[in-house]
C-alpha cells in the first residue's frame, strides 16, 4: 500500500486504489460489474473488444477500463447512456460478424426448445450453437437487450476444424477476442496459436494455419475454457449436455501429483465435461489433456461391477457375501498356518488418504503384518 491512499469516483462511489490498478480492477474489487469479453485474468490487457468501455468525466472518447490506470480524482460512469449505446453497437457488430444464431428471430434465451423451433423455421444452416446458455456474448446481448438483425450476419469464412479427438473449432462463432491466444501463450505458454491474416480475413491459426493436431497444440484445452463463445468447444460435451443442464462438483484431479482443482460437470449420473476451477490453487484454472479430457474411464462399460472369484483359468461373478467370506477364510488360514509374516498389503497412490490410512491399519491391526507398501517406487 502506498503512503497516502488515493481515490477515484466510480458510479458516484468514492473508492480507494493502489497506483497501477486499472479502472476495471478497482470496480471489480468493489462489486461494480463492468462487462468484459476479451479480458483474461493473469494476462496483459489488450483492449481488443472494447466491451469494457466507460465514460471518464472530462474525457472526449470512452476509454477501455481494462487498460486504463485509475488516477486520483477521476470520475467514472460505467453504465451511462453513452456507454450503453457503445456496448450495444459493439454487440450488434459482433453478432453480425459470424454465425451467431442464438438470437434468431427474437429468441429471448428463455427456452432452448423455443430457440430450436425458431431455428428450424429460419431454414438454411440451422446448426444450433453448442454454447447456448453458456455463452458470454449471448449473455451480454440479453443484458443489453440486443437482438441482432441490425447488421446482417456474415456467412462463416472458414469451415469448422475438428480433425482431433477433443476440440471443435468453429470459426463462424469466433469474435476474435483473442482470449484463446492469450490463454495458450501467456498462461499455458504452449505457443501453439496466434492471430493470422488481416482485416476481414482475420482468423486464429495454429502453425501456419493447420489443424491443431498438426501444430504444437498439446490439447490442454485452456483455450476452450477461455473462449467466451461457441467458437471453441469440447467435442464430447457438445452432444452430451448443454450448459446449464449439468451439476458441478469440485474435486481434485485423479492423475498426476499436481493435484489440480477441477469441476466435474455431471448430467444423469455421468461426467460430461471437466473444467479447471478458476482462481483456485494450485492450478489457477489450468488443466492438462488428461485432467480435462481423460474422464471416460469413470463410466466405461469395462468397469468391474461385481466381485469375481477365480475358477480354474477364468472368473465367475459372486455376491459380496461369498467373495468376502472366501477372502476372510483364506487369509485366516494362511495367517494361522504360516504366521502374519506371510501376508502383505500393497496400497495405492491412487486411492484417498482416508483409504490409505485404513489400508495400513488393516495390515497392521487386522492382518498383523508390517508388510505394507504402495507401488510408487515402481
Amino acid at each position: 500500500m502506498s503512503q497516502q491512499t488515493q481515490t477515484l469516483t466510480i458510479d458516484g462511489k468514492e473508492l480507494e486504489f493502489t497506483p497501477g490498478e486499472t479502472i476495471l480492477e478497482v470496480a471489480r474489487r468493489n462489486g461494480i460489474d463492468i462487462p468484459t469479453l476479451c479480458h483474461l485474468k493473469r494476462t496483459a490487457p489488450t483492449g481488443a473488444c472494447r466491451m469494457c468501455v466507460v465514460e471518464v468525466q472530462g474525457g472526449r472518447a470512452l476509454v477501455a477500463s481494462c487498460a486504463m490506470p485509475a488516477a486520483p480524482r477521476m470520475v467514472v460512469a460505467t453504465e451511462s447512456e453513452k456507454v450503453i449505446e457503445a456496448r450495444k453497437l459493439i454487440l450488434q457488430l459482433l453478432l453480425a460478424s459470424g454465425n451467431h444464431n442464438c438470437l434468431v428471430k427474437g429468441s429471448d434465451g428463455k427456452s432452448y426448445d423455443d430457440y430450436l423451433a425458431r431455428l428450424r423455421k429460419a431454414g438454411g444452416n440451422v446448426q444450433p450453437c453448442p454454447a447456448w446458455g453458456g455463452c458470454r456474448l449471448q449473455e451480454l446481448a440479453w443484458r443489453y437487450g440486443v437482438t441482432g438483425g441490425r447488421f446482417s450476419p456474415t456467412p462463416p469464412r472458414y469451415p469448422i476444424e475438428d480433425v482431433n479427438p477433443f476440440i471443435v473449432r468453429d470459426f463462424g462463432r469466433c469474435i476474435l477476442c483473442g482470449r484463446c491466444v492469450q490463454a495458450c501463450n501467456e498462461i499455458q505458454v504452449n505457443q501453439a496459436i496466434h492471430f493470422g491474416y488481416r482485416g476481414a480475413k482475420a482468423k486464429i491459426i495454429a502453425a501456419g494455419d493447420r489443424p491443431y493436431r498438426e501444430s504444437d497444440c498439446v490439447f490442454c484445452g485452456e483455450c476452450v475454457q477461455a473462449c467466451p463463445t461457441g467458437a471453441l468447444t469440447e467435442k464430447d460435451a457438445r452432444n452430451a449436455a448443454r450448459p446449464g443442464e449439468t451439476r458441478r462438483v469440485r474435486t481434485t484431479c485423479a492423475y498426476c501429483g499436481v493435484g489440480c482443482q477441477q469441476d466435474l460437470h455431471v448430467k444423469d449420473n455421468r461426467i460430461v465435461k471437466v473444467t479447471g476451477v478458476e482462481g483456485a490453487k494450485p492450478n489457477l484454472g489450468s488443466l492438462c489433456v488428461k485432467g480435462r479430457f481423460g474422464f471416460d474411464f469413470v463410466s466405461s462399460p469395462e468397469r468391474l461391477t461385481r466381485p469375481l472369484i477365480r475358477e480354474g483359468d477364468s472368473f465367475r461373478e459372486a455376491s459380496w457375501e461369498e467373495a468376502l467370506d472366501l477372502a476372510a477364510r483364506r487369509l485366516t488360514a494362511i495367517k494361522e498356518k504360516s504366521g502374519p509374516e506371510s501376508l502383505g498389503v500393497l496400497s495405492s497412490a491412487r486411492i484417498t488418504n482416508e483409504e490409505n490410512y485404513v489400508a495400513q491399519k488393516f495390515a497392521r491391526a487386522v492382518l498383523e503384518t508390517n508388510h505394507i507398501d504402495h507401488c510408487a517406487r515402481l
Partner: protein
Amino acid sequence: MAGLAASFGSGAMTNTIGDLEEADLFLVTGSNTTETHPVISTFIKRAVVLQGKKLIVVDPRRIVIARYAERWLRPRPGTDVAWLNGMMHVIVAEGLYNREFVEARTAGFEALQKTLEAYSPAAVEKITGIPAAELAEAARLYARAGRASIVYCMGITQHTTGTDNVKSLANLAMLCGHIGKPGTGVNPLRGQNNVQGACDMGALPDVFSGYQKVADENARKKMAAAWGVGRLPTFAGMKVTEMMPAALAGKLKGLYIIGENPAVSDADLGHVEKSLRRLEFLVVQDIFLTETAKLAHVVFPSACFAEKEGTFSNTERRVQRVRKAVEPPGEARADWKILCDLAARLGRPLAYADERAIFEEIRAVTPSYAGITYARIEEEGLHWPCPNEEHPGTPILHREQFTIGKGVFHAIDYRPPAEEADADYPLFLTTGRVLPQYHTRTMTGQTEGLNELAPESFVEISLEDARALGFDDGCLVRVASRRGSITVRLKVSPNAVQGTVFIPFHYAQAAANRLTNAALDPVCGIPEFKVCAVRLEKAA
C-alpha cells in the same frame, strides 16, 4: 524420498507450486515436466518466457522443456552424482558458495569439500560427457542466482544410485543457501496423484501415518491404544520390491493389492508375474480387471475417485478434498468400505460412519495433520505440517532451521549404473511417460481420444543412430536387453540424442519394463528404470 529425509529431515517438496514463479533460476533435472506434470511446467514456462527467468535443464533427452532453457546439459544416463559433484566443485573452488548459510545451518561441509576435490569439470566431462566449460557455467549461474529452485522427478530417483542423486541435489541447494525461502528449495514432483498421501498415511513398511516409526515402541503403543488392539507387529516390514522376491521364494503367501497394477509397472516384469503366480492367495481390489487382477483369486470391484468423498495430498503437501460426483457402477464399493467389510469377517472390525470419521481419526493420531479439517479445506487445501486448527499450514519447509536441525551434507562418490552400454548392448535405454497416457493406462486407456494421440508403444531414437543402424522411421524393431525383448515401432525424433533410446512404460503389450533392470537402490528399493543397455534389431 529417503535422500531428502536424510539431508533435511523431511522427504517432501520443500516449496509450493505457486512459489516456483518467484525463482530467478530453475534447475530442472530428471523431470520431463511438460509431459508428466504439465500444469507445473506452465509455472516454469511463464517465469522463463514472460518474466525472463533462467532455466537450466539437465537431462539425457532433449525434452520439450529444454526448448525454453538457457542451457541444456546432456549427461550420460546414470551419471548424476558426477555432474552434481562437478558443479559443486566449481562453486567451492571459485568461492561462490554461501559461507554464512553453510556455517550457520549445515553440518558435514569439510567431508563434502574433500570428496569434491576429485570432480573437476574436466574429470567430470570424462564420466558424463558434459563439456567442462558448460558445466562450470551452469554451476556459476545456479550459485549466483538470487533465488534458485531445483525441480526433479523419477529421472533422478529411478536409479541404483537414486538416494545418492537426491542427496547430491540437497548438497547443492544447501551449499548455495537456496532453501527455506520462496522461489528456492529442492522439489521432487510426485508422479501419481496421491503418492504423497499414501506415504503420509503410513502405506509404507516402516512408518505409521505422519512418518511415526514402527520401530519406536512409544509410537507402537500410541497406535495400539488408539486402535484398541493389544499389540502391533514389530517385525521389519518389506518394501514392494522385497515382497515380490519373497513371494517367488514362497515366503510371502498371501497378498492384498489395492488399485495397483504391478504386473505392468514393475521392473523386470516377467519376474513379477511369476512371483504373483506363486502366491497361495491373491486379492485384488480395483476398478478394472487389470493385468494384475487377472492373476487374482478374488477380485473386488471398487469405486473410483469421482464416486467417493475424501482427500488427496498433492506433491506440494497440500491436502485437498475429493468429492463424490456420481454413483459407483453396479455393486462397486469404496476401497475403505471393502476393507472394513473384510475386517469385520476377520474378527477385528474397523467401523466408520463415513470418510470424515476416518479423517478425524487420522487427525487425532497424526501430528502433522492435526490442524486440518474438512471444513478448513472446503475452499482451499492446506499444506502440512499443520499441528493445530489455528495453524495456517506450512507452504515452505526449513525456513529458520531444517526439520532435523542442521542440514546434513553427504560426501558421495560417483558409482556407475548397474548396467552400462557395451559391445553386445550398445545403446542406453531410458523409460518414462508420455503426456496423453498415465501409468499403466488403466484409466487413460479408456479415453479413445487419448489413445488416438498416443496409440501404441514406440522406441524413440535419434536420426544419427537410426541411420547408422539402417532403420527407417516407423519400421518395427526388436529391442533386446539382457532380460528380454519387445517389438515396437521406431520413432525417429529430434528429442532423442545419439546413444540413448527411450520407450514409454505405459503399454502392457510391449512393456518397456520387460527390458529394464530390477537392480535396486539399496536404501529406497527403487528399481533402475532409467538406465539399462539394449540392442536394436530388425523385427523378424
